[in-house]
């Protein structure tokens, strides 16, 4: 099963809100981010900034977190607040 990816806020507006990448054994959240940057032209600076946080199934995790097939990864720019 693929990993479903959701880009929030300006990232979604610029690069598309929903994506999917194939799960491979040993995949981490950091690997996924690198693969996404390769896939989305010009997304490197926006997706690798220090303010970007990554959530797996709704919980913010570090880059080293491992993924399982079928999980959802959300790429969260800095919150604007309400």
């Amino acid at each position, binding site marked *: 099963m693929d990993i479903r990816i*959701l880009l*929030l*806020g*300006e990232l*979604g*507006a610029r690069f598309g809100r929903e994506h999917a990448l194939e799960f491979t054994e040993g995949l981490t959240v950091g690997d996924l981010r690198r693969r996404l940057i390769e896939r989305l032209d010009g997304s490197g600076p926006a997706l690798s900034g220090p303010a970007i946080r990554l*959530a797996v199934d*709704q919980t913010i995790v570090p880059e080293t977190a491992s993924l399982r097939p079928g999980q959802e990864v*959300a790429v*969260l*720019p*800095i*919150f*604007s*607040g*309400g």
Partner: protein
Amino acid sequence: MTVSAVLTPDPPDAAGELRAFLAGRTGDGAVVSFVGLARDASVQGPVGALYLDHYPGFTERSLESIAAEAGGRFPVSDIRVMHRCGEVAPGETIVFVAVAAPHRRAAFEAADYLMDRLKTEAAFWKREDGPGGSRWIEPTEGDRADRARWSD
């Protein structure tokens, strides 16, 4: 204590919410409410509409946790938070906050705290649409300074 925080795509009826919040309240001496409205201009210029992007599930939990922390921090009885998502037109309500407490100081402070945290930490991504195009915005220095007042 009842702490409730909800996300809604429709404009909250602030007057109706306040009426419901006040109804039958006999043990509290104070209710403080706050209504945040969308403005038709920002420092960047005219604003035709706001759009609040959210992450379903995650954003609701960010509202709930801010409300719960306010309830743990101040001697208050009840808290109600309603927050918009999606498209918001100028003049419409973006956020409604109400706090009830036995005494007014706690109610004022909890409402102030709630708004300072909602303005910086609620999981939204806000876009202003104006005649010159759209811009995604971040908390201002003022918003961050307001939030920092409550740092332990």
